[in-house]
């Protein structure tokens, strides 16, 4: 089973590494802008993440730990990121 999923499908406690940011081949102005904004907020390929919190309604938005900072975003935006989940819960880094 592949453990590469969309970030929007992740659940609380999931952790791993960001694999890709931005939807490949999305040349719409909005897609390009979203990709840059995600990058500027530190959501960049290779960054470690952990999903910390989910909102009360529809589990949305989500709060992530990205490297050493905390970021909140909606699942809609999270759908343009793919992440590789750590196979097992990591022990202390």
């Amino acid at each position, binding site marked *: 089973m592949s453990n590469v999923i969309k970030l929007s499908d992740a659940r609380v406690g999931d952790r791993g590494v960001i694999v890709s940011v931005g939807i490949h081949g999305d040349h719409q102005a909005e897609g390009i802008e979203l*990709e840059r904004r995600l*990058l*500027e*907020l*530190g959501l960049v390929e290779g960054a470690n993440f952990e999903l910390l*919190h989910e*909102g009360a309604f529809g589990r949305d938005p989500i709060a992530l730990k990205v490297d*050493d900072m905390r*970021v*909140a975003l909606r699942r809609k935006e999270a759908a343009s990121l793919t992440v590789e989940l750590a196979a097992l819960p990591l022990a202390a880094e």
Partner: protein
Amino acid sequence: MDVAVRPVRVALVGNPNSGKTALFNALTGAHQKVANYAGVTVERKEGRVLAASGRSMSVLDLPGTYSLRARSPDEEVTRDAVLGRLQDEAVPDVIVAVADATNLRLVLRLILELKAVGRPMVLALNMYDIAQRQGLRIDLEKLRAELGVPIVTTVATRKRGIEELVAEIETAAGPGWTSEGETWTAPDAEAIRGAHRRAEQIMRATVRPPERPDTLTGKIDGVLLHPVIGLVILMAILFVMFQAVFTWATPIMDGIEAGFGLLGSGVAAVIPDTGSVWPLVESLIVDGVIAGVGSVLVFLPQIVILFAFIILLEDFGYMARAAFLMDRIMGGAGLHGRAFIPLLSSFACAIPGVMAARVIDAKRDRLTTIMVAPLMTCSARIPVYTLIIGAFIPQQTVWGFANLQGLVMFGLYAAGIVSALAVSFVIRKVFWRGAVEPFMMELPAYKKPDARSVLLNLWLRAKIFMERAARIILPLMILVWAASTFPYPPEGATQPAIDYSFAGMIGHWLEPIFAPIGFNWQMVVALVPGMAAREVAVAALGTVYSIADAESAGSLLGATLAAQWSLATGLSFLAWYVFAPQCVATLGVVKRELNSWKWMWVMVVYMFALAYLASFATYRIAVALGGG
């Protein structure tokens, strides 16, 4: 001008939550000037510093940003100020990049971007004490070499490192810097990725991760962001805030009201009663200026208390969490989670609410928020609601526990909130065709608010409000006074003087339009001065029904209204006040904030239309049920 004598121009740039404003306060103390940038409505904060050498510096606190690639009006100002593109603003001589020493990654990327601009730069590693406490090791020498900029460690809240920073800025400014070169272009996604890789390398080479990382923020978030407990706590905070705004402020507000009353009667006693000019002067000063300024300044305590809560919660780091918790709830109506704060402020007064919408970086979301902010029940409506409810709603208990008057008051608040959500839903469907702006933001680490900085910010807010009262509201009040005073009633007039004035003429002229919703001409006349500020309508009703000093003789006015109006008319008047854009000052601020006459008129039209429809429905239904 000779560069050696003019002040060194310094601009502070940094990520949000980097303690930039605290550093600005530590640098400039109380020597600050708050204004707006020419042509835009972003707040411009400038302060003066005197270096040990005697050289003077003017420091600009620019809005926080993650990138020069601006997304909001605030961030555009940061970009344009750094690049020297702002009209009436010279290029800064030195850029001070302010970094939270415990959160360097994103600011390193910003610094790389700033370096491309080519201005002399100094890096202030702020909150250095927290970094040391966490056991975070930063190799300052190496970082200096990697970035090629001088570095000063600072603790803004304790004024540590400030002198060193000033000295470093002076060195960086040199004897004179004249280049106006501007080499910055907006980076594309690949350039941002490249800068991230470079920042990552620098991080690895110079920063050892903390031995005792901040675990407190995670623990607090476990409670405050909990799907159930978090929402309960948010509601509890709101409850306390409202209690504070509406009960703690009352004694001070009464004091201010009494003070202005005394001032008015004092001035009236000094001005002679003879001749034809003196009474007019007295009326202008007492009824126009003093009563007008008083009617606005009376809200100062509420605004100060409201802002005290907002500033404390913001400095603590809670506001981003509130936006997180509320995003889905507000998102259902097409609002951004961050719209929560401006809409909350609008319960005190729509003016700070509309201004607070600046925190929303998405243009459409900001516009929607501003458009619905005046639907939130501001405190200026309270005197009107209290008067009409007191006159028409019996003081009785329903369902065994609820007070009927309180219930109606609650219903009016609820009507405002529900209609705000409905209107924003419609705006999104009609104007944006359902497009949704992204919601993403940093959740900053929790920090203990610094008392001095909170007080300073509070003082600035209060000052801005008072200046606005003087500059915008005072001329309006004088205009309304003139409309209600001139022309004079003819000899042997039988009606109150206002009936013969321009306001009275407008009232009579508009009466047929308002007749279908149950308003008589006296009410329409009262609506005209009510445009200056909603609660002035109470005083105006007093004038048209010839009850002097209506605000203190509220019960007498209430009894008169109860005798003169039907229940249906009273309810219709309440419904009108839920929706009508009865406040010129708010419209003025909306025009300024959006820099658009069009959207201001959209607001006027939609709110009047809603008010008319709501009053019409209320009146007709009440009449049909026997309340006519």
